[in-house]
Every structure is written in C-alpha cells, then in structure tokens.
C-alpha cells in the first residue's frame, strides 16, 4: 500500500531557500541548538541531518515531532533546505475523533441493554425548605410527580453527547494543528537561518 497519499496526515514537508553564499555547514550549525534538547538524538552527514525524539519536553520548540530529516539540495538557482518531519501527535489527533465516535456508539449500545427498572425507581419525597432560604428568596423545590422517578433515572444514564462533542473538538484541533505546526516549524527554521545570515553580514561589514 502506498502511504504517500495519506501520510500528509502525520508527515510535514517543506522547503526554505537559503541565502546566497550560505553553506550547508553554516545552515546546520545554526539549526543545531534545535536538536540539542532533552530526549533528542541527531546525526549529521554532509548535506543531511536526521533526528529522533523520545519523551521530549513539553516546551521543546519541536516537541510535536518525533523524527525527521533535513537535507540541503544545491542547484543552479542556489541552495534549498528541504525537510520531512513526522508527528505521532498529529496522527493521534487525527484518529481521536474515531475513538470518541466509537465511545459514543458504545454508550448508546450500553444504554439500550440497561433499561431502568421503573418499579425499583426511588420514591422522591417533598424536601422541606429552611426558613432562612425562604427569607432569602431561593426558589422552592419542585413537587415530585409520579412519572418523575423513571424519567430522572433515565436522565442520569451516561449520555453519548460528550463523546460526540469531543469527536468534534479533536477534528477541529487536528485542522488547527496541521496548519499551525507546519507554519510554526517553518518560521522556526527561517528564524534560525536568518539570524545566521544577519550575523554573517555583520561580520563582513567593516
């Protein structure tokens, strides 16, 4: 099966044009601090840097990614940094709605099997109201009706609504995360590389 058609779900790919004159070594040296984080291991060859993260810290700027490779390709037009990153968090968030839809189905199925025994339903009594509450104007409790006990029992049963709500929340979070994290990592790489160029230019200027 060719995963290429679906792997965009948890793979983030992108490219950045390097400034003229910026070498592979320069670029990777500037990006190096990003890979010197707790739980991150990385390897560098001439034009490629590959990394792997395990139990990465929450505030690691690349914590959403578990691994990937950055490669610098040279052409007539100049050098380009191409990156390919993988994220289990994105995949998890993509699949989470399915899990919660499953939980909703399970809740509905369980409720069908668990019919309340009306004869065993609790008999509600009239709850007296304290004079202080009366004086302060708190609403008097409702008088319990005969059919209330069964309806009350039914309303206490676990509802599938929260599971549907969370399925929706995770679907929305996936869309936000897929776009946001793609942009954030690109901005992070760009910021680190640009700082390199600025320093380089400052060093060259008299």
């Amino acid at each position, binding site marked *: 099966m060719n995963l290429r058609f679906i792997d965009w779900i948890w793979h983030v790919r992108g490219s950045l044009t390097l400034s003229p004159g910026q070498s592979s070594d320069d670029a990777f040296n500037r990006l190096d601090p990003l890979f010197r984080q707790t739980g991150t291991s990385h390897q560098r060859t001439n034009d490629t840097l590959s990394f792997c993260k395990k139990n990465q810290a*929450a505030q690691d700027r690349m*914590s959403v990614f578990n691994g990937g490779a950055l490669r610098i390709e040279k052409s007539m037009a100049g050098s380009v940094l191409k990156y390919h990153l993988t994220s289990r*968090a994105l995949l998890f968030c993509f699949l989470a709605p399915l899990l919660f839809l499953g939980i909703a189905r399970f809740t509905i199925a369980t409720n069908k099997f668990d019919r309340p025994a009306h004869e065993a339903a609790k008999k509600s*009594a009239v709850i007296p109201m304290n004079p202080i509450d009366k004086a302060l104007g708190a609403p008097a*409790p409702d008088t319990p009706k005969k059919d209330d006990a069964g309806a009350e029992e039914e309303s206490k049963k676990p509802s599938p609504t*929260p599971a549907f709500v969370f399925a929706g929340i995770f679907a929305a979070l996936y869309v936000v995360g897929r776009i946001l994290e793609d942009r954030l990592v690109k901005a992070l790489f760009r910021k680190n590389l640009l700082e390199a160029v600025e320093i380089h230019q400052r060093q060259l200027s008299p």
Partner: protein
Amino acid sequence: MDGIRVGRRVIGAQSPVTVGWENIPKVQGGPVKQFIFTWFQPTMLFALLAFWYYAPNSLAKASIALWVGFGFNALLLGLEWVNPRYASWRLTWKELVTDLFYVGLAYTLLRMASYYIGSDAMAKAIEHYFQQDKFTWFTGLPLLVQALLIFFIFDFGQYWMHRGMHSWYPLWLPHSVHHYITQLNINKGAVGNPVELFLIGLGIGGFFDFLPRAALLAGVLKLTTGTYQHINVRFNSPRWWRFLFTTTEHHSLHHSQDYEATRSNYAGSLIFIDRIFGTCVDGEAELLGMEGGRRMSIREQMTYPFTEGWKALKERFGRSSALPAQ
C-alpha cells in the same frame, strides 16, 4: 542544595522550591490588572454561588452545570494567555491535545464507569436501605450549610484517598503517572491513569442526588476553588483565600521534583484540612515532575501502573530464574 527546614522536614533539597508567602512573586502591572487578579477568585466563587442559589428550577440541572463548567474552564484558559505564572508552563498545541484527551476520557468512559461500578452504582446499591426521613435534620438545614457539608465531606474523603496514594504502593502506582506532568495548566487535573481518576472520584457524590440544589451548590464550590490547583495563572489570592483553599502555589509544590515537597498539600480544595493534619506547606515550585522532569507519553501513562506493578509482584513473589551455584 541545602533545602529549607519546615517543621521536622527539609523541603527542596533535591529540586528548587520557594517556601513562605512573602517570597512568592506578586502580579506585575497596573492597578486594574492587580485588582482583577486579586479579586477574580472570590468574585467567581460568590457570583456562581448566587447564580445556583437563585436559578429557577428549570435551570438548576446537572446538564446546565456541565456547560457552566465548560465555560469557566474556557475563561481560565484565556487567563493563562493573559497572565501566565511561568513561561515554562505555556500551553502548546500538543499539550492542549494531550490534556483534552484525558478530559474526554473523564467525560465519557470514566463517567460510565462511575455510573455502573463507581459512586453512582454504590449509591444505587444501598438506596433501598436509605430512609430519607432519618435525614430530615440534614435536609432541613439552610441550602448553603448543606452544600458546605457535602463539599467538606467530599474533600475530606479525597484528602485521605490522595494521602493514601502517596503512602501505600498499590495506590501509588496508578497515581504516580499523574506526577509525571511537567507543567500546570487548566486541564492537567484530568491527566493520569484512568484507574487513578476512577479511584480519586470515588466518593459520596451519588448519595446526594436527592438534594439537587445543594449538590449543585457543592459542585460549584468545588469548581470555583479546586480548579486553581492546576493552572498557569499568577493570582494575588487574598490571605483568607490561601488560608482556606488550595492554591496553584500549594499544588505546584505538591508536584515539585523534590520528594519531600510532594508529601505535602494533599487536599483538592480545602487546604485547611492539610493544616489540621500538619501536611500543609505554603510555597511554590516551577520545576515539576518525576525522573528529572521526564514527560510521559499517553501510552506509557496507560500502561505504567500495570507494568510496574507486575515487576513489583515478580520481585516479591517470583522465583529466581538462576539457581545458586553449588
């Protein structure tokens, strides 16, 4: 690291902590900001209490309480952006997704577990023996007194369950993973192994269903005082507030990387229970977690209590695979 002597204990010998209210930073900014972050907590407490006290019966329902809870948490998430306590606790997309996964479990599977085998089921099992007329002394009390008593009994039970989790290994195992969180955010209270969350939720909740308004008022007391345990917001909580209620400062110390500090501040809402039993330490910590702040994945959170429990059982009862040399 020398640590700080608090009573007979030395706190902060393994990881930095701040002890004493006078050493805790204050909210920075103009008078309006200072005012808001000083009076926000008491205002929300009294405003929501008044709402549930006077709400008509058509509104005083558990389903509305659920939405009020959602709204309150959303407001606090906003405050985390406006006035964070620590930059190192900032909420990221990944942290939000992780936290919400546990919140989702709490609202779905854990709620089902509670209904079929937890508090609700326990209450149902004994309701036939329950004679409501024997409790007229309680149901005749003013609503706020009923609510305060329910709130106190629930928190008192949670205090001992929590303290038990820190003192007895079989209970520590499911609770331990909650201590791998490395920062406090509004939904971090839900992060943990479902077994632990089920155990800590065991209480008397289901027994007070026959008092809907008192139960709602008790719920709002819990919401507007206990929620601040896990939050990345700097408040100037009034002196009386931090004497009575568990603050982020108290709970951050409980989550510190320092072992002695974790053995303090067990109460979920009412810190004065800790004061009564001598386990309260007023202070705060920024570096949180276990094993030097290792962040635990969701998969490990789910399996760790069982794998570690199995290892402990094998060590205790398992036969040695290697025979001693003759």
